[in-house]
Structure formats: structure tokens, C-alpha cells
């Protein structure tokens, strides 16, 4: 009886740890995706801003032609 109780407790702890690890992993993936979004938005805005200024060099012209 005592062994069963101990086993059940251990199982419950393992389950909780798995859930916790899964939860953490989930949030880490969300954080990584958030990082991607921030960078993509930044690059689009920064490039647009530079292209709006008088087109001054060939690299900007290419970026402009690519429609960014």
C-alpha cells in the first residue's frame, strides 16, 4: 500500500514536471517567434524608410525594385 502511494506520488510529480517542461517549451517557442516578428517588422520599416529618402545608391535601387 505504501509502495503504491509512493509510486503514485512520483508519477504525479513526473507528470507535473512534464506539463511544466511542456509549458516552458511552448512559451520559449512563442518567445522565439515573437523575436522573429520583431525583426521582420523592423527590417521592413527600416528599409522602407531608407528607400523613401532620395534613392542614392545602387543597393537602394535594387531594394526599391524588389518592392520592399
Amino acid at each position, binding site marked *: 500500500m505504501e509502495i503504491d502511494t509512493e509510486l503514485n506520488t512520483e508519477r504525479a510529480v513526473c507528470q507535473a514536471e512534464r506539463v511544466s517542461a511542456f509549458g516552458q517549451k511552448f512559451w*520559449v517557442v512563442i*518567445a522565439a517567434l515573437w523575436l522573429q516578428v520583431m525583426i521582420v517588422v523592423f*527590417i521592413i520599416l527600416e528599409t522602407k524608410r531608407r528607400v523613401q529618402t532620395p534613392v542614392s545608391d545602387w543597393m537602394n535601387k535594387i531594394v526599391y525594385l524588389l518592392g520592399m
Partner: protein
Amino acid sequence: MIPPQTSQVLLGIVVVVLYAGSVTAIGVLSSAIAIGRQGSATVHTRLGLFGFVWLGFVMGQGILGVVWLVLSLAGILNSWLIWIVCALGWFLGGVMLLTFRRQAIQAMIQVRCGVLSFLHSRSWYFWVGLIVVIVSLLRGLTALLPPENDDALTEYLPVAKVIAFSHTLDFQPFVLANYGLYPLQVELHWAALFAISNETAVAVWDYLCALSFLAGIGLLGWCLTSSRRVAILTVLMLLSTPGFYYLMGGGKTGNAFAQSSIAAFLSLALLPTLGRRSVLLAGLCAGWAMAGGYQNVIVPPALMVFAVMLVHSPWRPLPLDIAVKPLKRFWVTNILVGSIAAALAGMPMLIKNWLLVGCPLAPAFGCQQMYWAAWFRGSLGITNLSVTDVLFYPFAWTFAYRNSMLGNISPLFLGFLPFLLLSYQSSLVRPALIAGFAGLVSMSTALFITPLFLSTPYFIAPLGLLALPLSTSVVAVERDFCHGRNVRWLVRGAIFVVSFLLLFQSRGVVYAVRYLASIDSQAVRYESNPNASSDVATWLNAHVQSGQRVALPNHDIYPYFVDPNILVNSESAGERQWLWEHRYSLSPSDVWHFYAQHGFTYVVVPKDRVDGAQSVRRDGVALNVAFVGREHAVLRMEKD
């Protein structure tokens, strides 16, 4: 045969290297004297040789800044005197190297071992570090180009150029009305470099200061977390901040005085082992930061929080070696030492104001009847943020474009924030949180003082402090979730995208190479700038003869382009004061009459006012158009 422009650029680089060596030697010796032999050994142990030399470089800038201030106020900032100080620095450096050659060799071996172990670690951080080095080098090449930033050409550079020309620090009424009263710690180094070399030397020095700031923030990260990865990621965060990298070598003072701020925090980080001597160093550096820009008044509150957390917080990176009991006495003594050191470093700038206009705290306090004080009061109301911007401060700072903001911050600040929320309890992150809190205090103080105005170059040091816990959290998450391949690649991919964006943004290096090779000239570069009025300046420089005076009644034209001889003979402070006091009673003909009476030959006016000025004729004095540029025209006063 090397073209003259190329040789000038190369000469500028050589002079900067010599100057930097001298500054470092003087600074290292001064730091060693200030903190003693035991203190130096402690700094050496905690920060390594590189950290000790870096602190010396910043200290040297502070000390020589004061020396140049004294010499320029005395009117003797001559090139030969600057060369003597530089030679003294090299002599001291040589003596120190000879005396401590064994320690220096050992330290070099340690540095070499550290670099080699990092190279062989096959960590992906090696590639991030490599990209940081490449981007820094590209930015260094870009710094060879003539400065093009508006503020640099209107205020920062002309002040330094005229000090070098006249060997004297004066009020300089021809720059933005109250500019001569601002702290000029950084500009005095530029003045010294203008005196012994040229604008390339100034721009490269500014670039070196920016690079030194990156080194300082990396050192602080390493000191708090003992992780090279944190140091590299923090440097990348700052290097990918447009408000920082566009001004590396751009002739603005922000990157230079940020070094002193970070040096204050790095010195204070040694408080648990170095005690009062670290407070002395921190106080001096904080004082020099404020002597570089009054906006650094946001640094001392952050330093206080940093010190309290270092001593009392369970997150502190080092155990306390010093006895902190009785606690009250410990804090009173340290605050006193820090305040006296900061006052010693900052006071010369107030004395300068007292000597120039009789009011140490001008233009903010005192001398309020002067025309430049009215100008300053007018500038206080300038805002560039709305209330909505303030509510979404980090987003506005990262993505929005606002006037005078001078660049956004890196997207990594917002991007790394969720990682901090996930890992703030990690043992690696906790010490870095102390720096993060200090950064928050600094930013909060700035928000309290000027809530609706944001200019990125003013906040480079707080940004560095905020970057530390953020970068540490990413390293911690990567360490703790190393088995999650998707996460790892998402994070690494994002960081590499930012790194490649940085490489892309450094494409201006093509123009730097063309400039270095004398394919593009300085004049051609400035002519392409529509607002620069360089055409008017070029005409004035070629046609104004010795003894002739030119009136520059507005500040639209960039004084940097105008010959210093013309600038120092333009309207005096007294003349500007008279014109300002009578501004409501004077008709245009009165103004021209005033100029004629005071011996002016030319007046520069906006192009749209040429017809009105020409129709005015009084006491036989007529104004004829001498030159018409893109934005401005030059009128010549002639007697009928």
C-alpha cells in the same frame, strides 16, 4: 604619388593612433595612482589587462579633457603644446611597459589563450563575434568619410574647429546661441585633434570612442555574468541599434560620453572587492559623463541603485570582501567620496561658464536677460513624442520615426524581452538584472525630466544597461533548452538575420573607399546635400578678404563649412544682444544700417528675402547681390 586627400586621411588615422596611445598611457598611470597598487592588482584580476587598459583609456580622456579646457581658456591650446602632452604620454607608456613587462607578457599570453580557446570552442557565438568584428571594421572605414550629420555640422564640429583655429575657448556666438555654455568635454578632444591634424582624425577618434563604448559594455557584461557569450550578444544588441551605429564617427558626442557612463558602472561593479576606491573611480567617470553632456544627470540615480543592489541584493555577482558595518557609515562615506569625485570632474565646465558669461549654471539658471537664455527657454518646449508614443514607448522607439530621434533602437531589445520573462530566476540572469534595474532607473529619470522628448544618442548608456539582462536571458534559455532544436534555430536564425542586416547597412563603405582613394572629394559629397548651404560657404571662403566682416544673422547655414577666420569676425555676442533687445523696434533698414555702421561688408540671408533686402536703402548704403546659392544668398553692402 599619393593624392593629397588620401595622404590627409592616412595622416589623420596615424595621428589618432598616436593620440589614443598617449591618452591610454596617461589614463592608466592616473588610475593606478588613484586606486593604489593593491587596487590596480584587484582591477587587473577582476577585469583582466584589457579591462584595466580600457578603464585607463576612459580615465585618460577625462584628465586630458580638463587639461585641454584649462589650456583653451588660457588661450594657449597650441599644436606644439598638444604634441608635448602626447609625447609625455608615450614616454610614460614606454616606462610603464618596461617596468611591468613581465606582467604585460603574461597578460598577453592569457589574452591569446582566451582568444584561441574561443576560436576552438566551435560555438555559434564565435560566428556572431566574427560578424561583430567585421561590422565594426566596416563602420571604421565609413568613419573616414566627412561628417554629414546636421547637428555635427551646425554645432559640435564648428565649436571644436574654431577652438583649434583660435587656440581659445570663447563664447562663440556664431554657433547655436547657447551652445558654448554646454559641457564641452568631448569637443575639447576634437579641438586638440583639429589643432594637430584634420577632420579625419576627429571622425576616427569619435569612431574609436564608440568602439570603446562597445568594449565597455561587453566588459560590464562579462564582469557581472562571467560569460563571454553574454558580452558578445550585448555588443551585438548595441551595434544593431541604428541610433548608435549611424553615429559611429558621425561627429556627435553621444557615443563618446556614453563610455564614461559605462566606465562608472564598471568601476562600481568592483565595489564588493575594491571598496571606496571603486566609488572614487565611479564618481570621476560619472562627473566626466556629465561634463560631456548635462543629459547624463540621469546617470547618478542609476549608479545609486546599482551600488545598493550590489551590496544588499542576493543577486550580486561577487561575495562582499569589504566590511559593510556599520552600514550607515559605509554609505555616508561612499556617497561623500563619490559626490566629491563627481564634483571634481564636472566642476571645470561650470567654472568655464562662469569665466565666459559670469553664470556657472547658464543657460538654464542665471543671466536670464541675455539673448541666448531666451533662445534656451524657447528650446525647452521642443517635443517629438505624443502621449500615445509614451504609452507605447518601447514600440515607438523601435519602429516609429520621429523628428530629432536620430535613429531607432535594435529590434533585439523588444525581441529578447519574453526570454527575460521566462528566465529571470536563472542564476546566470540574476546578476545582470542589477544592471537592468539601473538602466530602468536611468530611463525613468529621463522620462521624468523630459517625458515628451526622445533622442537615442542621449540614452546609449542606459540602453547598454538594459541590454545586459536581455542578452543574458537568451544565453540562459539557450543553455537550459539546448535540446529544443526548433527554438535554438529560431533564435539563432533571428540573430543571424540581424547580423546580415548590419552588414547590409554598412554598404556605405564603398563611398569610404572611393573617398580614401580620392575618387570622390569632400566638396562633391557636401554639394549633394541640399540643406547644407555649402555653396555659400565656399563662395565666402574664396571671396572674403582679410579684415572684412560677414553677418550671419541666422543659424541655418552650417558654420562648419565657413572659414573660422570669417566666423570669429562675424557678429559678436554684444552685437547680437543689441539686435535682440531692439528686435521689435528695428525696421529692416535699421538692421542694415546697424551692420554697415559696425563694419560689415557682407550679409548672408535666405534666398526668398533677397528682393526685400535690395529695396532697402539708407544713408547712402545699398545692398547688392553678390552671390545666390541654392538656399541662401550673399549681399554686399556698398556706399553710393
